[in-house]
C-alpha cells in the first residue's frame, strides 16, 4: 500500500513565505476544483454556503499572505463596527467624527505598511539624513481591502446602503478570495445581496464564466507574461542599451501588456466568482477605445476610478464648486495625484497619476476652445473626429505608461531621449523579421483584442454558453494545458499584486 506522507499533505495547508499561493497557479486550480466540487452540494443552503466561502477565503488569504490574515480580519471588524455606528447616530457631527476615525485607522494601516520607507527615503534626501529603513513587509492586497472597508463606512455616511450588513456577510465581502488580492474593489451594496442566491448557474452563465477564464489566461499568460519576460523587462531596465525604435515598440508593447495583464487577471477573478454564483463589478470596458482621458478613466480599472470618483473627487468638487471650472481642475489634479500614489510608493507612480490629472485639467480648461475649433473645421459628428480623438487619447495614455513601466524618472526620460535622439528606423524591420517575431505577433494580437468592436467582443462567451457543460469543461482544460505549456518555469507575479 502506498504511504502518504502526512507532513507533505499538511504543507499544502500551511503558509510558505517562499511560495505564496496565487490564483493562477496549477496548485490553486487543484484546490479550487476540489472546493467547487463540495460547493455544488452545499450552495443551496445559504448558511453552509456562507461558512464555506468564508473559511476558504480565509484559507486562501492565509496561504497567500500568512499572518496578515489577522490584519484583514481586524480591518474588517473595526470598519464594520464604525460603519454601523455611522449609520446609527443622527447627529452629523458624530457621524463625521466616526468617519474621520475610520479613515485615520484604515489609511493609517495602509500608510504604515506601504509608505513608511518611502517617506523615510524622501526625508533622507531632503534633509541629507541617514534614517534607516524599517523592516516592513506589505500585506498582499492591502490597497484593495482597505478601500473596500472604507467604502462601507462612506456608504453608511452617505446613506447609500439600504440595509445593515451582518458581520458574517461583511467578513465574506472583505475576504472573498477571487477579488482579495487585486480587486475588483466591489461595493457592499452590490456584493452582499448575491450571497442569498441559491439557484444553480445556467448553462449560459457557465459559458460566460468559462469565457472569462479563457480570455484571462490568453491575455495574462500568453500575451502579457510572454512579452514582458522576453522583451519589455529588458528594455525598461536599461533603455539606453536599446535603439529608439526598440523603445517605441516597448512603449506600445507596455500599453498592451498592462492592459492584458490587469484585465486578464480581472477576467480570471470574474470567472472564478461567477462559478461560485457571484457577479463582481466590471473593471474594464475597452479602455483604449476611449475618446478622451476622462473617458479612459470611465473604462479603465472602473472599480478604482468609480471609488475615487464617488468618495474623493465628488465631495472635493462639491466643496470647491464656487471656483467653477478651477474647482473642478483642482479636484481632478488632487484625485489623480493620489491615484498615482495609491499604485505605489514610488515617484514614477506619482508622476504617472499627475500626468493623467494634468491631461484632464488641460482638457477641462480648453474645452470651449476645442469645441469652437471642431465646429469651424466641420468635423463635428464625423467618424474621423472619433478616430482622431481615440488616437490622441491612446498616445497620451501610452506616454504616461512609460513612467509606470520604469523604475525611476530618469529611466523614463531615457526612453524618450532614445526615441527622439536615436530612433534608427531600420531596426523596426529587423525587430519583426529577425529579432522578436513572436513578441511582435503577440503585441499585434493584443492590439486586436484591445480595439475589437465592443458590440461583438463577447461572441466567444455566447458560443461557449451554447455548448453542453462537458464540452465547456474540455475547452477550458485545453486552454489551461496550453497556458501551462507557455508558462515559464516560474509564474511571473501579477503587476497589480504589489499595489
Amino acid at each position, binding site marked *: 500500500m502506498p504511504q502518504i506522507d502526512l507532513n507533505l499533505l499538511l504543507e499544502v495547508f500551511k503558509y510558505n513565505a517562499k511560495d505564496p499561493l496565487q490564483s493562477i497557479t496549477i496548485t490553486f486550480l487543484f484546490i479550487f476544483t476540489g472546493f467547487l466540487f463540495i460547493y455544488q452540494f452545499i450552495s443551496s443552503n445559504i448558511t453552509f454556503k456562507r461558512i464555506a466561502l468564508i473559511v476558504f477565503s480565509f484559507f486562501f488569504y492565509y496561504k497567500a499572505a500568512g499572518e496578515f490574515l489577522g490584519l484583514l480580519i481586524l480591518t474588517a471588524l473595526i470598519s464594520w463596527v464604525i460603519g454601523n455606528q455611522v449609520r446609527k447616530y443622527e447627529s452629523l457631527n458624530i457621524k463625521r467624527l466616526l468617519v474621520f476615525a475610520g479613515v485615520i485607522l484604515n489609511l493609517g494601516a495602509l500608510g504604515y505598511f506601504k509608505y513608511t520607507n518611502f517617506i523615510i527615503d524622501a526625508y533622507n534626501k531632503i534633509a541629507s539624513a541617514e534614517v534607516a529603513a524599517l523592516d516592513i513587509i506589505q500585506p498582499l492586497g492591502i490597497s484593495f481591502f482597505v478601500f473596500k472597508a472604507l467604502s462601507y463606512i462612506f456608504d453608511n455616511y452617505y446613506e447609500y446602503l439600504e440595509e445593515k450588513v451582518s458581520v458574517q456577510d461583511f467578513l465574506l465581502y472583505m475576504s472573498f478570495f477571487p477579488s482579495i488580492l487585486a480587486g475588483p474593489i466591489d461595493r457592499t451594496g452590490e456584493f452582499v445581496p448575491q450571497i442569498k442566491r441559491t439557484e444553480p448557474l445556467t448553462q449560459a452563465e457557465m459559458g460566460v464564466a468559462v469565457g472569462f477564464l479563457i480570455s484571462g489566461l490568453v491575455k495574462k499568460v500568453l500575451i502579457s507574461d510572454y512579452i514582458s519576460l522576453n522583451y519589455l523587462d529588458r528594455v525598461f531596465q536599461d533603455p539606453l542599451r536599446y535603439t529608439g525604435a526598440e523603445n517605441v515598440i516597448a512603449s506600445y508593447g507596455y500599453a498592451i501588456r498592462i492592459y492584458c495583464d490587469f484585465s486578464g487577471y480581472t477576467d480570471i477573478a470574474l470567472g472564478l466568482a461567477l462559478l461560485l454564483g457571484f457577479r463582481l463589478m466590471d473593471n474594464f470596458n475597452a479602455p483604449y477605445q476611449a475618446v478622451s482621458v476622462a473617458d479612459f478613466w470611465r473604462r479603465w480599472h472602473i472599480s478604482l476610478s468609480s471609488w475615487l470618483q464617488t468618495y474623493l473627487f465628488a465631495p472635493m*468638487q*462639491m466643496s470647491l*464648486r464656487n471656483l467653477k471650472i478651477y474647482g473642478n481642475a483642482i479636484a481632478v489634479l488632487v484625485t489623480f495625484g493620489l491615484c498615482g500614489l495609491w499604485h505605489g510608493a514610488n515617484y514614477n507612480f506619482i508622476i504617472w497619476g499627475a500626468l493623467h490629472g494634468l491631461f484632464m485639467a488641460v482638457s477641462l480648461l480648453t474645452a470651449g476652445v476645442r469645441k469652437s475649433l471642431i465646429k469651424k473645421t466641420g468635423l463635428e459628428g464625423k467618424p474621423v473626429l472619433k478616430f482622431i480623438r481615440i488616437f490622441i487619447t491612446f498616445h497620451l495614455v501610452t506616454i504616461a505608461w512609460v513612467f509606470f513601466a520604469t523604475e525611476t524618472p530618469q529611466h523614463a526620460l531615457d526612453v524618450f531621449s532614445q526615441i527622439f535622439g536615436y530612433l534608427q528606423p531600420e531596426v523596426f524591420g529587423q525587430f519583426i523579421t529577425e529579432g522578436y517575431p513572436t513578441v511582435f505577433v503577440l503585441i499585434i494580437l493584443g492590439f486586436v483584442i484591445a480595439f475589437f468592436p465592443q458590440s461583438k467582443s463577447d461572441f466567444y462567451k455566447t458560443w461557449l454558453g451554447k455548448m453542453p457543460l462537458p464540452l465547456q469543461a474540455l475547452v477550458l482544460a485545453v486552454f489551461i494545458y496550453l497556458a501551462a505549456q507557455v508558462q515559464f518555469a516560474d509564474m511571473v507575479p501579477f503587476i497589480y499584486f504589489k499595489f
Partner: protein
Amino acid sequence: MISDRLKTTILNHLDLEDYDIQDETKANTVPGWDSLSHANVILSIEKEYGVRFKSIEILKCKNIGDLQKLIDSKTK
C-alpha cells in the same frame, strides 16, 4: 414629480432642447451631465432658486427626484 422649473434649469444649463426627466432619472444618464459637469449643474440650480445646499445633501441624492425633494425642502 420633477417641476418644470427644475427641468428647464437643467436643460438650459446642458444646452439640451428636450429630455425626459423623471424622479428615478439618474444624473449621469442625462446627456452632458457627467461627473465633471456635475458641480456646475448644481451651481445653476442653486442660482435659479437662490439657495445653498450642503455638500452632503447633494452627495446623498440618488436621483433627480431626490434633488427635487431637497429643493422643495429649502424653498418651502
